[in-house]
């Protein structure tokens, strides 16, 4: 960064390109365990994606006429969007509620959210039979305004722009573009307010997608409150992801952090645990009301009933109590454990709604092919590579350069 500041300033374009070319080169060790595992998987994944476009979706997936949405939608989109929910929750806490304590993890969370959305959109494109026609959603006179998916798509797209705006000051600081940084920070509040609004709507919209599948989703999982359930779940799913991801990046990138930041980070984790416990309790209360309202008692006494109870007790009540306990006893270990259980629970619930209890009455079950798993991993790995590339270069975890400090809105 010191060097960059010397050679580069706003009005010397020539140096900008040199600077970017220089930054494109890899930094850090090349043969890390993560690289050794992820690189071959990415290569295989790209080959599978090539085959998918050459021979059709059926060549690499187990999708059928009965199960048109599989792992790529069920995990990458329906689950992944919940995991990216941390961005809007933290932005709300820091920029609207003025909880400055969480400022140090805001940028990395927003960056994570943005990349997650970017790559889940890529996954969505892979799953579209006629991906080029996606322009019909954006331009032209083909707006299906009564479609939930249309509204989700637009809120999704606009939110990506809002996230990009929220993160853009870090890019400006990286490029040492002071004027740009000033302009970007003035439109920050608009991006923040609309980002949160758009999030609430598309997070709930993902649940609303399944409202018309009333006959296909097991009654224990289907309810007219699906949109509300999904938006509440996105709060604890997002924060649990922030806890897990923050814990990992604090280990991997610890050299970027100042000495007091570990203590500070623990205090942030304890605060987040409290919020998670509260959000899980709200979710649990909502689920109880939905259950009683739906008069679902007779369904409990079956295999699906046990599966439902496992989800409710093991992955909602248990992490809720764990978060409460770890918050009271300030136990970082249990906070991380509870975060992992919460994330597994969100995966379980979203996979249930989108795949497992979807057409639960069918004899033939959908099981994803190994190719579907590899492509999903490929997307996640490429996302982590890009995330690492950005964290290595831009002021995401470390403090912004001195000139940029203290002139936020």
């Amino acid at each position: 960064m010191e060097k960059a500041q010397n050679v580069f300033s706003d009005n010397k374009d020539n140096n900008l390109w040199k600077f970017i070319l220089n930054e494109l080169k890899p930094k850090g060790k090349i043969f890390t365990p993560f690289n050794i595992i992820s690189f071959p998987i990415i290569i295989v994944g790209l080959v599978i994606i090539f085959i998918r476009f050459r021979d059709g979706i059926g060549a690499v997936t187990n999708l059928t006429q009965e199960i048109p949405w599989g792992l790529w939608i069920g995990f990458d989109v329906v689950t992944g969007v919940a995991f990216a929910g941390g961005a809007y929750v933290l932005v709300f806490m820091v920029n609207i509620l003025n909880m400055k304590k969480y400022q140090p993890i805001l940028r990395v969370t927003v960056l994570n959210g943005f990349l997650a959305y970017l790559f889940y959109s890529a996954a969505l494109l892979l799953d579209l039979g006629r991906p080029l026609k996606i322009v019909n959603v954006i331009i032209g006179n083909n707006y299906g305004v009564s479609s939930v998916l249309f509204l989700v798509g637009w809120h999704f797209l606009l939110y990506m722009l809002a996230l990009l705006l929220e993160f853009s000051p870090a890019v400006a600081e990286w490029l040492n573009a002071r004027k740009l940084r000033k302009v970007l920070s003035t439109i920050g509040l608009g991006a923040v307010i609309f980002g949160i609004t758009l999030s609430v709507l598309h997070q709930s919209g993902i649940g609303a997608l399944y409202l018309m599948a009333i006959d296909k989703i097991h009654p224990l999982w289907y309810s007219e409150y699906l949109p509300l359930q999904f938006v509440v779940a996105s709060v604890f799913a997002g924060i649990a992801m922030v806890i897990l991801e923050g814990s990992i990046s604090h280990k991997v990138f610890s050299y970027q952090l100042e000495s007091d930041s570990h203590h500070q980070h623990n205090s942030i984790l304890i605060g987040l645990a409290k919020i998670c416990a509260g959000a899980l309790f709200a979710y649990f209360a909502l689920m109880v009301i939905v259950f009683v309202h739906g008069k679902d008692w007779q369904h409990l006494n079956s295999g699906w009933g046990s599966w439902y109870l496992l989800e409710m007790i093991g992955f909602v009540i248990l992490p809720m109590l764990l978060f409460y306990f770890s918050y009271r006893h300030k136990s970082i270990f249990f906070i991380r454990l509870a975060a992992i259980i919460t994330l597994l629970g969100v995966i379980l619930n979203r996979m249930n709604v989108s795949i497992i209890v979807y057409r639960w009455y069918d004899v033939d079950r959908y099981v994803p092919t190994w190719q579907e798993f590899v492509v999903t991993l490929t997307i996640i790995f490429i996302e982590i590579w890009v995330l690492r590339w950005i964290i290595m270069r831009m002021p995401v975890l470390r403090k912004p350069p001195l000139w940029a400090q203290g002139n936020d809105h």
Partner: protein
Amino acid sequence: MSINRRTFFKAMGATAVALSVGKELTASAESVAEGQSELYGVLYDVNRCVGCHGCEYDCAEAHGLEYPDIPKKPPMRKTDDTHLTVVNFHETSKGELPTKIQCMHCTQPACDAACLTQAMHKTEEGPVIWREEKCMGCRYCMISCPFDIPKFEYHSTNPRIMKCDMCHDRLKEGETPACVYNCPEEALMYGKRSDLIREARQRIHDNPEDYIDHIYGEHEAGGTSWLYISPVPFAELGLNTKVQKQSYPGLTKGFISSIAPVDILLPLGLLGIYEATRTKPITEEDE
């Protein structure tokens, strides 16, 4: 202060967009309701059908698909991306009976409401058609359809959604659907939906021994253009009798109509909270 003003204008902009979307929504719902009485459809009489499978061949020919390969004792078959209609035989309380299945052409179709590019479209004449140039292949119509009708060409690089279109092209030329035109037993009857319901009632009234007192499709999924009458309950014929009586798009109405208010009110609420919680004095900002 300039931030607040700017944000306020943005909120107004979003309000305008949201309101215009809301208007369009109600308009499209009304037009479907108004056109309802003039919709055309087909009445299928299980009593008259002999199960010759002729309609399957006629359908394949009309849509340029390969002829079906029907085994002597066919097992239960489903429609798929190369068979837009199939006739199955069911063991019922009144012996073995045939049942033709194809798209029901709902009055308020779930697939039409699900489609984000208007590729699935309920025409004013009655058929629900799929329009190739608009479809992006997301398959949300397949998730939404309560009758499992839209099928997808999984092994194509430019896949189509395949389903019965009630021979929309033939209808435009003043002809009847291929299966109706060729049916040797007149088990299929094409006409205005309201006339077909009257005809069905007449048949049930005249021969109460031969029919159960129920027209499948009159109220199922909020009403369909394709109607069935039969001597046995429709569950015995393998038809989906758990389908709800209300229209399926109605299930998402609450969510969709809540979007505009949230888009408008939430930003203003957030702005209020922001103002209430900020610590810096306002005069120190920006200028």
